[in-house]
């Protein structure tokens, strides 16, 4: 069964879910998360009719944690941006408690900020990517979205942790989120980046400042930081992201699954027609751009890789002076769901791409950096693998929100 929200909806829950920490939680995923037997087209005609053969590691863990898988919502093509994405809509109703959405450039955080929910992008390498049809392998994580942070954390606790089949994960145990949080010192120093403010327009600036003021009022120490060339995050994500996307989408040739164009000439002609017909305009231009850097302008890609290293180090240094960094999650001026070009897309994701570039954990909190003109979302970023502290701070701030 499909509708405007779901591409697939599970109607028959053959066996009742197991007893576990997630019993009673209803989860929606995207059609890029492998669930055995579900159509898994990753939002693209290039995967038309592809049905997952096996559960993703994340899905296996959800099942054994007792969660109910409700279905998969519509997603942007191959998960680039949020065009046509319905996951947040699915989560805002009563039917679903938590949604899983691949955070490639900030999708989990922006989708939740737009709809008044919590959006969490875990540290790179703490949640298995096996069975998740990705686009930009070095930047993406399985993001978690929900109205209640407790549920988001509960799901994170079950799905995070080493998977011997995902070699990009570090072989080290993850602390028990729930337990560690209780005994943790809640971070108290929050850094704000001067250069970010300059990228905002007046009304966005005011909304974000309202959030910072709230933090101050609650006793948090605010520290002004400078991050020169902050806009480089966007450029680096754009160059490296498009190159990785071009590579990882090379497999969509229409031979084994997906749309296949008729061709009476030869295989090369068939490939060209198939890919030409399969991809939509936005992703096509992104893949083109990636191929351009691969074939025609490799030095720029190398520059981007080098600059990425510099940005990671710089971010680490800043986080030695504060507990977390606060950023707005989204722009009010740019609607991520309506972006039709690469430039518009990156404009809308300006403040979320840094965590994807560096691999840091990041959490977007609703109704905090907000006023009558809107909610930009309060995005907090912590050091790599400091997810527990970040989520603990999130809980603290969420109680403030509830108290307001």
């Amino acid at each position: 069964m499909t509708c405007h929200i779901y591409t697939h909806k599970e109607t028959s829950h053959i066996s009742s879910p197991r007893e576990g920490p997630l019993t009673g939680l209803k989860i929606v995923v995207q059609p890029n998360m492998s669930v055995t037997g579900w159509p898994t087209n990753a939002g693209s005609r290039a995967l038309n009719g592809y049905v997952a053969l096996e559960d993703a590691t994340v899905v296996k863990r959800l099942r054994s944690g007792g969660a109910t898988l409700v279905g998969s919502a519509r997603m942007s093509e191959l998960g680039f941006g949020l065009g046509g994405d319905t996951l947040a809509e699915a989560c805002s109703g009563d039917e679903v408690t938590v949604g899983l959405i691949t955070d490639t450039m900030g999708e989990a955080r922006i989708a939740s900020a737009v709809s008044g929910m919590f959006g969490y992008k875990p540290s790179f390498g703490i949640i298995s990517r096996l069975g998740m049809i990705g686009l930009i392998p070095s930047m993406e994580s399985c993001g978690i979205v929900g109205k209640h942070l407790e549920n988001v954390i509960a799901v994170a606790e079950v799905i995070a942790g080493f998977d011997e089949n995902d070699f990009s994960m570090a072989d080290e145990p993850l602390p028990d989120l729930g337990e560690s949080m209780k005994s943790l010192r809640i971070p108290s120093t929050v850094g704000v980046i001067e250069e970010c403010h300059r990228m905002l327009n007046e009304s966005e600036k005011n909304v974000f400042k309202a959030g910072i003021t709230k933090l101050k009022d609650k006793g948090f120490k605010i520290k002004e930081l400078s991050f020169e060339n902050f806009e480089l995050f966007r450029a680096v994500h754009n160059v490296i992201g498009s190159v990785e996307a071009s590579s990882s989408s090379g497999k969509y040739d229409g031979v084994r699954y997906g749309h296949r164009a008729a061709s009476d000439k030869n295989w090369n002609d068939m490939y060209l027609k198939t890919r030409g017909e399969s991809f939509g305009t936005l992703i096509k231009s992104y893949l083109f751009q990636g191929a351009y850097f691969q074939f025609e302008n490799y030095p720029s890609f190398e520059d981007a890789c080098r600059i990425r290293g510099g940005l990671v180090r710089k971010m680490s240094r800043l986080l030695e002076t504060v507990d977390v960094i606060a950023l707005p999650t989204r722009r009010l001026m740019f609607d991520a769901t309506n972006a039709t070009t690469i430039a518009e897309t990156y404009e809308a994701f300006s403040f979320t791409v840094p965590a994807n570039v560096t691999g840091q954990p990041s959490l977007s909190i609703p109704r905090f950096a907000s006023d009558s003109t809107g909610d930009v979302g309060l995005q907090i970023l912590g050091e790599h693998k400091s997810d527990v502290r970040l989520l603990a701070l999130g809980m603290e701030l969420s109680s403030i929100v509830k108290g307001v």
Partner: protein
Amino acid sequence: MRYEAVIGLEIHVQLNTITKLFCDCPNSPGDEPNKNTCPTCLWLPGALPRLSADALEKATLACLALNCTIQPESAFDQKVYYYPDLPKGYQLSQHHKPLARNGWIDIIGEDGELKRLRIHHVHMEEDVARLVHETEGKTPISLVDFNRAGAPLIEIVSEPDLRSPHDAIEYVKALRTQLRYTGSAECSMEQGTLRVDANISMRPVGSDAFNTKVEVKNMNSIRNVAEAIAYEIKRQTESIEKGEPIVLHTRLWDPDKRVTLPMREKFSGPCVPDPSVPRIVVTPDWLDKIQMRLPEMPMQKANRFLKDYGLTPEEAAGMSQERDMSEFFEEVVRKGLPVRRVASWIVTHLMPALRDRNQTIRETTITTNRFAELLTMLESGVINAHAAKEVLLQLLSDDQSPEEIVEKGSLRQVSDTAELEGLIDKILADHPSDVEEYRQGNAKIMGFFMGLAMKASQGKANPKLLKEILTKRLG
């Protein structure tokens, strides 16, 4: 003007690991098509590569055998190109950070002198699928067999130190010997587990320029490598003499016409660091462990055979060429048989027999025990050399004991003087003119009588005794 060739070889060797490079599928490309496949080697959406520890270890062992320096850090890149044998659009290979660099191999050059050929680097990569072109009715179709997709390869890239077909033959042979010794690879050109591409350019003798090169592929034997290079040297020299420019391109060796034919412009796609396979960081401890697994290599072994067993340089080299054979030799010697006898029987009888059968010693039924038993019977005069050769051939194909074979074939040596005397007397009586000739001083006639007598005894006569009797009777 005289020209010399500048030749570099790129050699792909398939490692003999149990599984493929990035998944647990059997590394057995010859099986029924598409039997050994999984989401990873088919690159279905959502699959992830998992680097095989075994492949990394075997690759490292191979690099050590080629005197390379293992790099503290190496990493996989995506070699981007689109072709039906590579449906994910890129080959995982090590371009920017190869596993090992700066190796060498020694050969004997054409002038008889030792020549050191340098190896630029060795990197790991995955093999691609195999395409099968057929017709369905009248429509040509291409089928893809993924059994080979993801099989572990190493590519050994030489420096352009080679100058002749001779160098190429010796380089490939030496490299094959070294790699087989490590047990990491079979290195059979016929079976495609060792593939050679040659880059060839020409320059005036005395120049140290590197001119435009031509790549030649598709040689499936060492002889073909040498012939293709010789052909290409001639072809390029003629072009240069005619004033035609050499263009960078790839040519295919045509084994039937024995010529190289142009295939395409030399293609080199981009190489992008792969984000999914973690980089390889080699620790000294790990490297020590691999180093310990490196066996005594053929050169050292030959030297030891020379010193410890008093073999000739030829015997020592022959005996150490293949690891299995060298171990076989030492085990037989340890059973107390005379070294030179063992060595000469291996070199002159066992090895040629294996070559005739196109088998390795492991593929036959012979064991060191049965071989030693055979030589013992020969030593003690139970059988003669002629019979021993016959027994040896049987030892290779069934598992009867040498004793059984001798009894069943009545191959026991005849050392009965009376029997041999009777036999000789009859021959001498039948050939009075030859007897006369011998007595006139033609000593060669002795060989003729020996041959007749041996034949009359059905090859079983004790040759020593035979000669004694003949000498007595003729003298």
